[in-house]
């Protein structure tokens, strides 16, 4: 079979428990060669465990794993020359410099000295760490550590790259640059398996996404297909400048809104915000009038485009607040 048509990763009925905890509960999926595939799920969903199973760091209780044409169930370490892994925590050597860390990681994959050094220098430059190349890893900031860990994961130019929450803990600008780099790597032919709990990140980067909750895949499709049913819907976000009541007045307001506008569904995603959904176009004027009469000043009303978050909430039944938002997590590093 030609390599093109063969999936890079094919997983079937994969399960793993830790004592009573079922971390992975019978998961099936494939990742095409050259694809950028995202695993999206809340904390404890089983994302890291699946990466560990796929990369040979843990053994499945049941199920099969194939990487390319290699059966990793029978030979768990046989595909390791193809894989690159960026773990969720930085795990480089604290006592080595950034440069030495990269050279060491390249040596583990059998790269010669000249090549190791050239690639290390290139990557340090690409990740804006050239200035810190000679400093010990232990002294790096969190964001610098993250970037060096990613560089270490790609120095041997793996065919398949696993990125476990690559942008967690780094500042917004660094995260953006990192996403550009991930997209570039993928364009250059690297198959990428990425886990994240930032929905926007998955939506922006990945072609296909699996939603994972409590060890199960509850949805898996291309971003376009996942969004399709939501396109039929209409959404509006009303931002109020003052007058929004606190609980229990808020509950009261929601009830009144529901009674006055039975075709619309209301939620309060944040204080001062009202989210409206409907199956037909929403008329803004009566709504604003109603709110102003209730003593609430409306600052803005904007149309909401369907997002993956809507899809996620619908498919998983989880609340919006479960998943992280990058802006809440501005890191100190980088």
């Amino acid at each position, binding site marked *: 079979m030609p390599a093109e048509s063969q999936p890079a990763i094919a997983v079937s009925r994969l399960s793993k428990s830790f004592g009573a905890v079922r971390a992975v509960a019978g998961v099936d999926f494939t990742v095409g060669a050259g694809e950028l595939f995202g695993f999206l799920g809340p904390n404890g969903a089983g994302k890291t465990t699946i990466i560990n199973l796929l990369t*040979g760091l843990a053994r499945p209780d049941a199920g099969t794993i194939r990487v390319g044409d290699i059966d990793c169930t029978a030979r768990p370490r046989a595909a390791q020359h193809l894989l690159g892994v960026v773990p969720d925590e930085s795990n480089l050597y604290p006592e080595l410099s950034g440069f030495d860390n990269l050279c060491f990681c390249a040596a583990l994959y059998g790269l010669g000295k000249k090549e190791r050094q050239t690639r290390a220098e290139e990557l340090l430059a690409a990740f804006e760490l050239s200035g810190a190349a000679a400093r010990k890893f232990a002294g790096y900031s969190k964001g610098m550590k993250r970037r060096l860990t990613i560089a270490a994961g790609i120095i041997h130019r793996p065919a398949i790259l696993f990125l476990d929450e690559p942008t967690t803990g780094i500042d917004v600008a660094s995260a953006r640059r990192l996403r550009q780099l991930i997209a570039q790597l993928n364009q250059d032919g690297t198959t990428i398996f990425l886990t994240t709990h930032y929905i926007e990140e998955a939506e922006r980067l990945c072609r296909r996404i699996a939603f994972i909750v409590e060890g199960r895949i509850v949805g898996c499709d291309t971003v376009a297909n996942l969004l399709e049913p939501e396109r039929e819907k209409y959404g509006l976000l009303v931002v109020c400048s003052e007058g929004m009541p606190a609980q229990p007045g808020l509950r009261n307001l929601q009830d009144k809104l529901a009674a006055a506008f039975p075709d619309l569904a209301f939620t309060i995603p944040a204080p001062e915000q009202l989210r409206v959904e409907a199956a037909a176009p929403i008329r803004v004027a009566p709504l604003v009038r109603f709110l102003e009469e209730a003593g609430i000043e409306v600052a803005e009303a904007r149309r909401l485009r369907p997002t993956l978050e809507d899809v996620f909430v619908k498919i998983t039944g989880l609340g919006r607040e479960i998943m992280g938002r990058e802006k809440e997590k501005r890191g100190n590093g980088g």
Partner: protein
Amino acid sequence: MKLWIAFWNILGKDLRTYYLKPPNLSWGLIFPLAWGGMFFIKSGSGLGSIAELLPGVVAVSILFGTTSMLAVTVTFEKKNRSFERLLLAPIPFELLMLAKTSGAICFGMLNALVPVLMAALLTDLAGVNWSVFTAAIFLIAVSSTFLGLLIAVAVSEIFEAQTLSNFFRFPMMFLCGLFFPIALLPVPLQAISWLLPLTYGADLLHGTVHGSHRLPLALNLTILALFCLALFTLSLHQIRRRWIA
């Protein structure tokens, strides 16, 4: 070729970052000197007793030198997760673990050199069978290292590794015939002695340095080599069972 690049770099990194650091080097020097000095003074029988003491001091230096390092190179790296990098590397697991333990073996053998050089300055060692002596030092270093590995794999904290290795190391100093013959021990303890690899190593050293040994040298060498194999296999099995579970 590629595999050896990985092997030498793993070994080289450990040597540079752990073994050749001043605190470890000085420990490697001071420890055998202190033991040698202590027993020398205690025996009170002058320079003539050096040959009798040398095997014990050599063995104890290797035992402590090797086992204390595994807590760092293995337990510490497992704890800070850098060990995962090694497990992900495309190298056979056995070769990886050999690379990870070779540093301790070399360090143990270097530790043995200190009392030997000291003794050579103070007394005449012309009668020593150096080829068997070297083989003995090598096998003692290997078996102690793999014992240390087994301990390092059994625990998850560095202090636990230290405590657990002391649990084995200190009794071994008395049970393995390093400084006084096993025959002086109560019979039940003698039975334990013969279950410990260092007993055979010490017997070898006594045999090569001053000619008194209980088992044929070839038999000692064979048993010691078998211990090395068994301990290595057992450690690898434990790592697979506990860390790649």
